[in-house]
């Protein structure tokens, strides 16, 4: 590995940015404080601290192995950090909750590889995702009523899948599967959406429409988008955070980030 980054500099940057948004603390939806994760000695996350504001759209970029997906794993309970805490809505310590409980407090996650229920119809996929009582007892007696039907058809429109409602989800194209999974997140009505490479494998046209969708969600939900596609990130016109080797490298507008010599270094220097 070509070690070009100055670690002390990153630490300074990270702690500075953690203190930076000095606005009303109630507007912070998620705070990551000093989390570290290592796998067999490899530090996937190294003392990472970040804040996400309510109704903000934030993009996270970084080279492979920067820790983007691990960060999402820590937030959603898939991985327990060795150190540090993730706090949701200033009060909920996520490290004490299971994956399902984290979903119920209002965090939705889209996986890097589209993960949907292939042997269910598109409609059923959205039905199962819907925000409702998720206990066994309730599910045994649950009936889809007209209000739910309307919500599902609204979401079908939003993600452009109205024509495919009764089709098996496994038959959808790759891009449509990505949309279906985004639709499932919307059905959950989460406060915070974590989207891991939502436009991977999409055509340019699909990518652009996904960008429009995300821009329309801005202000209604808080979104965190991990992406490799720079054009897509530029389209979102949001705050961008750059991760490298498990720590925050810098944060700012897309244009500023792109011209930052350290960012150019980590992207082009290897």
């Amino acid at each position: 590995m070509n070690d070009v980054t100055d670690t002390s500099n990153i630490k300074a940057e990270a702690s500075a940015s953690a203190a930076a948004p000095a606005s009303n603390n109630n507007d912070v939806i998620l705070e990551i404080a000093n989390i570290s994760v290592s796998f067999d000695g490899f530090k996937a996350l190294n003392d990472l601290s970040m804040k996400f504001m309510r109704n903000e759209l934030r993009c996270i970029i970084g080279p492979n192995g920067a820790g983007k997906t691990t960060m999402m794993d820590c937030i959603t309970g898939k991985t327990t950090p060795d150190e540090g805490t993730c706090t949701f809505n200033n009060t909920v310590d996520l490290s004490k909750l299971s994956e399902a409980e984290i979903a119920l407090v209002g965090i939705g996650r889209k996986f890097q590889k589209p993960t949907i229920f292939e042997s269910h119809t598109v409609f059923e996929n959205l039905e199962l995702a819907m925000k409702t009582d998720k206990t066994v007892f309730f599910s045994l007696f649950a009936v889809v009523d007209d209000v739910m039907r309307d919500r599902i058809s609204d979401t079908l429109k939003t993600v452009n899948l109205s024509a495919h409602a009764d089709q098996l989800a496994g038959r959808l194209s790759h891009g449509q599967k990505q949309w279906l999974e985004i639709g499932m997140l919307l059905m959950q009505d989460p406060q915070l959406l974590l989207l891991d490479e939502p436009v991977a494998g999409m055509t340019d046209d699909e990518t652009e429409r996904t960008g429009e969708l995300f821009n329309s969600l801005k202000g209604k939900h808080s979104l965190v988008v991990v992406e490799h596609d720079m054009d897509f990130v530029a389209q979102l016109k949001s705050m961008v955070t750059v991760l490298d080797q498990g720590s925050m490298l810098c944060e700012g507008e897309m244009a500023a980030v792109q011209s930052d010599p350290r960012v150019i270094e980590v992207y082009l220097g290897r």
Partner: protein
Amino acid sequence: MSNARTPFIVRFFSATGRTGWIAIALFALLTIVAVPVCHLMFQEGDALFISTFYVTLIGKIMCYAIVAVAMDLIWGYAGVLSLAQGLFFALGGYAFGMYLMRSIGLDGVYKSHLPDFMVFLDWKAYPWFWAFTDSFVYSIFLAIAAPGLLAFVFGFFVFRSRVKGVYFAIISQAMLYAFLLLFFMNNTGFGGNNGFTDFKRILGYDITSPEMRATLFALSSATLLFALLFGRYVVTSKYGRILTAIRDAEMRVMFLGYNPLWYKLFIWTVAAIICGIAGALYVPQVGIINPSEMATANSIEIAIWAAIGGRGTLVGPAIGAFVVNLSKSWFTVAFPEYWLYFLGLLFVLVTLLLPQGLVGLYQQLRARSTR
């Protein structure tokens, strides 16, 4: 289309479609009316007489079919391959078998109130776990509660540890084997190698009388049909859709806010209870329960019935149980040494050529003919 105001009972029974109901009506007519009538009203030599041999054989196979339906719920729909269904079946059988043992009364070899095997061990009283089993109602309850409780406790720890796939199959088989050894021992209170046998009566009625045989036969059929109706409701409910979703993408289900532990544990426990009921119906018909029911091969065979009939169809595994066991009863007479080879061959061929089983084959043929 049902809505929230449709009474539950209507939704329960309308989960099974029209074709299903026609099949159920025909099967009920045949097994709850025709067979008992033919067995009771006609004599040896009449053209319509159905002998004790066939009533017992088919009655036994219907109990197996109930187990196959339970296997499909847990394997076909939840994707959990259990190699312990034979254990739950045997536990139900033992629980009701003890009632039958105690009903022998003083007619045993040793003329004692205790079962012969306990007299043989010089025991003076029943061990604690057989308390109240002289009650018919309690022993039925025990046949449900024992497998249910064991499945719940085992399932809770195994599912909570997120043990899946082949690892789950191995652990379930290990549990089965542990119980096999426990029941084999003479001094654990389960009759050892011989198990329970020599039953005389149920509720005071002679267990070998044609009327009792016909009653048990009809009861087995009714239970099988109810298991199918119940299974159909469960798998078509939202719960059932979540169950298949867990089978296909458990991670996604978890991140939607469902806890797979309770979803798996419910169907796992219910499947064990269904097997227990089947076992309780089986024992009075075959007249014996011993640890061989817990043999690992028996539980694997249950999985084979399900695979041959067609997983994830409910009716398929029941058909599979009939096909395999009917051919078994013919084969073991005609070519006794080759049955296991034949079973293995059947399993390999079905897996290779008919991944959806016999029901899948039927659906393919029908789709081709309507095209």
